[in-house]
Each structure stands twice: as structure tokens, then as C-alpha cells.
């Protein structure tokens, strides 16, 4: 009868030791990978930048062309159609239409911008007395411009 052969104990211990070593190695490898990835992304930098928001109120003074030198505090949009319009308050930026306009300003300083039409323009403006108003009217204007200094021709 053959004697039964058992595995020697020392060999079994070595196997466990190998498994333990492998586990430690795996943990170390994972830690190295984690650290390397974290360090790489942590070193990412956002470039310096400029950013800004600016706000400012828009009023008649801001819209007034440089050719008009007086002080304006209100904007008046002349209605289309060419009917006679009279404005009794001073300090207006009076904006005409693309058609012919007929405007009377009775008080103080006003800046009148007649606009179009480009050809055969007949914008009419009567300023206050003594004359202090300033007008920007079309080059082709043949209308009556009274009591107003023509400071610019446009269009």
C-alpha cells in the first residue's frame, strides 16, 4: 500500500505570501495611478482673463451730434406725415423723419435734424427768437429755415 502524499506546509505558506504580495502590489499600482492622474489634472491652470460690463444711460445729450453745440435734455421724434408740429419747451433734440417735416420751436435752444428725403428736400424749421437754434438739414433742402443756424448739411 502506497503512502498517501500530502502537500508540504511550507509550500502552502509561500502561496499565501505570493497572494499577499500581489494584493499589495495591486493597491500600490492603483495608488500610483490615482496620484499621477490627480496631480496631472490638479496642475491644470485657467489662463488669466479680463471681463467687464459697462452700463451708461442714453439721453439726448449722448445722441446729439457734435455739430450741435447747445445743451439738450429731451428727445422729440417728429411724427411722420409732414404735418405742422410746434414745440414750446427748450432744450430739445428734434429728430425729423425720412420725409419732409414742418417744425416750429418757440423757446430757447433746440437742435433740429431734418433727415431725408435726400433729393428735393423741403424740410421747414422755424426757430425761436432771438435765434439760438441749430439745424442739420439736407443738402438739397429748399424749404424755409428761419431763426436757425445751419451747422451741417446731411444727407
Amino acid at each position: 500500500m502506497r503512502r498517501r502524499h500530502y502537500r508540504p506546509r511550507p509550500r502552502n505558506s509561500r502561496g499565501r505570501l505570493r497572494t499577499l504580495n500581489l494584493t499589495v502590489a495591486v493597491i500600490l499600482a492603483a495608488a500610483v495611478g490615482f496620484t499621477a492622474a490627480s496631480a496631472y489634472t490638479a496642475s491644470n491652470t485657467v489662463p488669466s482673463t479680463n471681463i467687464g460690463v459697462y452700463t451708461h444711460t442714453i439721453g439726448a445729450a449722448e445722441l446729439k451730434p457734435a455739430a450741435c453745440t447747445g445743451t439738450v435734455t429731451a428727445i422729440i421724434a417728429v411724427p411722420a406725415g409732414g404735418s405742422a408740429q410746434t414745440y414750446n419747451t427748450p432744450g430739445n433734440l428734434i429728430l425729423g423723419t425720412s420725409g419732409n417735416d414742418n417744425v416750429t420751436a418757440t423757446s430757447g435752444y433746440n437742435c433740429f435734424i431734418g433727415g431725408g428725403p435726400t433729393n428735393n428736400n423741403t424740410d421747414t424749421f422755424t426757430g425761436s427768437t432771438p435765434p439760438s437754434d441749430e439745424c442739420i438739414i439736407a443738402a438739397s433742402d429748399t424749404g424755409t429755415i428761419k431763426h436757425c443756424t445751419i451747422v451741417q448739411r446731411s444727407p
Partner: protein
Amino acid sequence: MRRRRFVVTVLLGALLAGALIGKVATASNTVPNQSLGYGSAAAVTAYTISGVTYTLDSTSPQNIDQVAFTISPTNPRLVKAQLAPGGAWYACTNSAGNVSCATTTPQTTATGSTQLTVVATQ
């Protein structure tokens, strides 16, 4: 030989898994919300706007065709302007700090323009 291949494969897998976890962990980092312009002076600087001019349409002066201004520092990559709160935003072009913004699409009117807002970013 087979065992050695197995060990190398397991170690490489662990390395990759660790790297992946590290990447994911830092990718989920969030930068807290800050007010505009907040930050160190060296990193975030507000732009300065000056010399604002509006160009009225020559034929229909009740319309504004353009707003122009100078900006400092002169190198913003994106500049946009708005002429009324809640209104349209207009793209601007910047040439060495001289900025112009066409305001014709949609057409801006003088009476409808109450507040200029400019946003600039590098």
C-alpha cells in the same frame, strides 16, 4: 510564465483603474460661482469704456445706425452692446481698441434707446 503574465495584467489594470478614478475625482471638481469681476487684480481686470458716440441715420435720424467707443485694455476677443434693457444684443468689431457696433438689425431707435450696456471678454 502564465502566472507572471497574469500578475503584470492585474498590475496594469490596477494602475489604469487608479488613474481613471483620479481623473474622475478631479473632473468633478467645481469652481464656485463668483460675482463678475471677482478675483485677484492680476487675473481679472474690468475693461474701461470711453468716448461713446452714436451715429444717427442721415436720412431717418430717429434711427441709430451705430454706436462706437474705445475700450481698454484693447484686446477683448468678444464685445457686445445693448441699447436698452432687455433689448437686442449687437455684435461689435474691435480694431486695436476702437470698437464699433452696427445697430441696424434689428434697427434701434433714438427714443427706444435708454441704456447702453457693453459686455467684453478676453
